[in-house]
């Protein structure tokens, strides 16, 4: 197992040289994929935490299973189909919330679980399709291919570039939409782009942690980073670091104890979050806060 650490990126190709062991190869691919997802999920997760969109993210990711079903039904690319369905659900939610007859949380629960159930039912009807349902629900990071990794880094890179471009208006709209609007920020445009970014990340990350655990990958690293951050960008970077550490620790843990890899990554992230709210971390931040701010209330 130790040999894995020294393997380089060039050896990730399916016929990589010097990779004699199959285990090495798929494990390195898993690491590369997981780290790629963590890097994209960190900053986006911060916005989800700041905007209190956790349940919203959950709804979009549950809808991803419907996307999978549609992909099989219409013989589309799975990632594309998941993106389209998630984005569709996001806009449906925006419209429903505007003319709401139900409270937001009920609406979210309704859409989340109907989309999930609908996806499962549609899949069950397609008897000719053999689907690894567990893989879609909880992720199958150990089965990622070279093209999956290309998608994660290509798509994820694009998501990050767009996020950097809209960072300022999106952050202003996050702090207070009316203030931002009054001061000339196009709030609805940045919100719309943010929705599309969320749908993209769900489509990209689904294979790694599965539809049921994507929100955890988005939220937990960001939540763990919060206590140590004094600026939004700092929190985003810390969330990336915590996400990456979770992926590495989770994957090694799953190899060590033969546990499912997606859930193991989430458990590792949870452990880091628990540390961030533990007395040790509180003590560390107190000291730093004491230097920066004289009057903590």
């Amino acid at each position: 197992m130790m040999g894995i650490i020294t393997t380089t990126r060039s050896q990730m190709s399916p016929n990589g040289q010097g990779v004699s062991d199959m285990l090495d190869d798929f494990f390195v691919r898993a690491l590369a994929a997981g780290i790629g997802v963590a890097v994209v999920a960190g900053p986006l997760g911060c916005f989800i935490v700041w905007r209190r969109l956790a349940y919203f993210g959950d709804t979009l990711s549950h809808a991803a299973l419907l996307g999978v079903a549609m992909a099989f039904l219409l013989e589309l690319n799975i990632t594309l189909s998941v993106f389209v369905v998630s984005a569709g659900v996001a806009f449906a939610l925006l419209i429903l919330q505007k003319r709401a007859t139900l409270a937001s949380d009920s609406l979210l629960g309704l859409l989340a679980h109907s989309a999930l159930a609908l996806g499962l039912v549609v899949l069950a009807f397609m008897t000719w399709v053999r689907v690894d349902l567990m893989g879609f629900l909880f992720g199958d990071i150990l089965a990622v291919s070279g093209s999956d990794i290309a998608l994660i880094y290509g798509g994820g890179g694009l998501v990050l570039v767009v996020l950097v471009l809209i960072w300022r208006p999106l952050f202003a709209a996050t702090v207070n939409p009316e203030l931002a609007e009054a001061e000339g920020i196009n709030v609805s445009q940045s919100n719309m782009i943010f929705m599309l970014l969320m749908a993209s990340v769900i489509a990209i990350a689904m294979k790694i942690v599965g539809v049921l655990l994507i929100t955890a990958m988005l939220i937990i690293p960001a939540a763990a980073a919060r206590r140590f951050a004094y600026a939004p960008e700092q929190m985003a970077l810390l969330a990336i670091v915590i996400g990456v550490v979770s992926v590495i620790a989770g994957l090694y843990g799953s190899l060590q104890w033969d546990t499912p890899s997606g859930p193991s990554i989430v458990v590792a992230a949870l452990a880091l979050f628990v540390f961030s709210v533990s007395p040790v971390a509180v003590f560390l931040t107190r000291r730093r806060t004491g230097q920066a701010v004289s009057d903590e209330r």
Partner: protein
Amino acid sequence: MLQKSNTLVSLSGAGVERGGRWLVRGVDLAVRPGEIVTLIGPNGSGKSTTAKLALGVLNPDEGSAERRAELTVGYVPQKISIDWTLPLTVERFMTLTSRINGTEVGEAVSATGVSHLRHAQVRTLSGGEFQRVMLARAIARNPELLVLDEPVQGVDFNGEIELYDLITGIQKELGCGVLLISHDLHVVMAATDRVICLNGHICCSGTPKDVASSEAYRDLFGARAAPTLAIYEHSHDHTHLPDGRVRHADGTITDHCHPDDGHHHDHPQSDEPERAGGE
């Protein structure tokens, strides 16, 4: 209302409807450079809605709202809570939507007396500190129009007077127009050029003195307004009934009063209007 070419913002016959109910209707107002216009009215009278119309945050469902092109606006909203999960220093908060250099930030925070909080986290501020930061934030943008929605909330009484003096000072220095919202006319009287009294529509408007001595104002604000009133008598042309309908002088009852009904109201309302609260 006359509209000069240099008007910063003007509303004419503007109204906002939500769920079949008019939050505010038939509002005419204009703010010109160097002028302080104050909106007063009880809770739910549409003051904040009117401010949002002026800012363009809300679009009118009837009438029109016009702003001068490329208008720089400084806005202090009535109720704004910063999510406690946001890591945000005061300085960063001030440069949220516009690139303001360090010197400008420094001048603005010292003008509102919060220099010491420049690097503090926004979530740790008290109510009064936060209002001062919001004000600093608004003036640092060097605005042509300042919209201040109850800017002295959470500030103690002495601080209140001080803040209004500050606002007047800033306004003189920047030469900007100010749209000020307050529920307390007395405190802002000295600083105000024109007062518009709202209660779903414009009840009365004019100089602070005229408004303070008007029947409509006393009816809206009850006993607290009474001490400053001259004895003033005339008949009402319509009465707001408790169920929201309106009885007119001729005895007819309608669902709404109309903006052109004039400014004579009798509102069945408690003597002491609530001070805090939203629109």
